[in-house]
């Protein structure tokens, strides 16, 4: 989690000494896998945020309009997991 955080917020901190520490916990293949994962998430979340679309389903599993979904989920992302249907 710290590695992903640094890539986004403090890339200057990623140097040889940092990699030495990182390799105590992750292999090079795992570091590449994390990078690959981030590649499809970092930019797209920002892009999707500009499009202002909302989940198609309510926490209890109903198909809802975008207007209702906006009312349910609000402008700021927050987890409604506790209200989710089993």
């Amino acid at each position, binding site marked *: 989690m710290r*590695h992903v955080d*640094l*890539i*986004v917020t403090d*890339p200057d901190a*990623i*140097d*040889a000494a940092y*990699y030495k520490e990182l390799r105590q916990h992750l292999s*090079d*293949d795992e*570091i*590449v*896998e994390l*990078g*690959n994962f*981030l*590649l*499809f*998430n*970092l*930019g*797209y979340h*920002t*892009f999707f*945020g*500009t*499009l*202002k679309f909302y989940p198609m389903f309510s926490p209890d599993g109903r198909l809802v309009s975008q207007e209702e979904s906006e009312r349910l989920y609000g402008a700021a992302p927050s987890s409604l997991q506790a209200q989710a249907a089993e």
Partner: protein
Amino acid sequence: MSFIEPLELDQIEDAELRDLVLRSEELGVPGGTFARIIARKPEQAKATLSVMLMKFTEGNIDHRLKEIIRVQLARFAEDPHSSALRSNKALDMGVTEAEIDAGSGDYEDSEHFTEAEKVALRYADQMFLDSTKVDAAFYDELKKHYSEPQIMELGAFIALFHAAHMVMRSFGAPAPTAH
């Protein structure tokens, strides 16, 4: 040398992945170093390189404009490797270093770009500098110049390559000595 060592071509056993690596090298973008680093995870690398090559070279947005936007994003991410790469396809189409530099600089006042190209450059610029400015009014402005499919093509391209440059910077690859 990058923090993660790129694989040699003969270390890549999957023929489809090897072909994608070679295509990345031939185009010049995302380049062989990036492709050979992510090749350490072959199945993921095949998906990533396929999507990157498709989003960069196909669609209904001028490839030269995409290359100018790509370099703007690479410089914004301070990724020395991707900043130094050039699309051979865009070079063949006549893109110049003056246009590329203008796209990363004061493009709003540049004579190199049409209004449509300027708003596309602004889209990439604002998406990661201050995405709150990419609001309904901004999308209305984009729609004066581009269809909705073209806007989605631009947005998805910008999102993917911005992230790729941030990730490539984390791999620590220096600028190539020649391209």
